[in-house]
């Protein structure tokens, strides 16, 4: 019984942690856009994600972490790839994303629906890290 209560409390804690991460990202992106460091305003949001990238901790209907260019200068494809690579190269961030239930990193431009996708499980190095 208590185990179930702890599980429910964990679930709520995890959800709040997910939204906190997204909020922190959006705040930092907004600050850097306002300061003039970034030419494009980025926004993170939670999406469905790619089903083939799922792992054991994936959240149902919430496995995608999408970074979208909102306004400012449009981004070229190599810039989208660079944004994704910066996130994927940040190992603590990738591990945090995986442990909070994200499985797909998506980077999209503000025009159209095309973008880039990465499977987070390939960049987390979690098994090796723990062993």
């Amino acid at each position, binding site marked *: 019984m208590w185990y179930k209560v702890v599980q429910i409390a964990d679930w709520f804690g995890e959800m709040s942690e997910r939204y906190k991460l997204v909020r922190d990202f959006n705040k930092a992106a907004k600050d850097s856009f306002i300061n003039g460091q970034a030419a494009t305003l980025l926004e993170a949001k939670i999406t469905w994600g790619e089903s083939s990238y799922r792992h054991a901790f994936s959240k149902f209907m919430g496995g995608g972490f999408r970074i979208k260019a909102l306004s400012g200068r449009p981004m070229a494809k190599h810039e989208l790839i660079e944004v994704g690579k910066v996130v994927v*190269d*940040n190992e603590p*961030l990738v591990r945090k994303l995986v442990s909070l239930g994200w499985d797909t990193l998506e980077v999209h431009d503000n025009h159209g629906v095309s973008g880039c996708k990465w499977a987070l499980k390939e960049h987390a190095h*979690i098994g090796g890290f723990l062993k």
Partner: protein
Amino acid sequence: MKYILLQIKTDTTAVSALSNGVSLPNNFWFWLSIIELVIILFLVFKLSSKKKNLAFSDLNKDNLKKSKETDINMGNLMNSINNSSELYRELSRKCHPDRFVNSPNQKLAEEIFQEIARDKRNHEKLIALKERAIVELNITF
């Protein structure tokens, strides 16, 4: 005895008449709920069997508690997204080991260059390496 038999016969006919009239919709909802239950059980089974084949299925969730509590420096992440490629290009050009051939700093330059290549998308570390290059390799930026 005759009355009792008659009574039983009338009771059964009344029950069958009742069941014919009333239990037909009941049967429909009953079978619908059975079908729903079967579908739910199938989905639960499929979900659980799928989870066993997924990546990290051998890990316990408690093992990842530390990763969950990691504090991420979002300011550094934004700087890395916006400025790290330029800084990396500048550093890799100025700290390239070929510029220090036959000098006492050649090994140090190689070491710093390797670190620059490893952390080329981490702005914070690139800034630290830049300061190290200024102090140890006497480079002006």
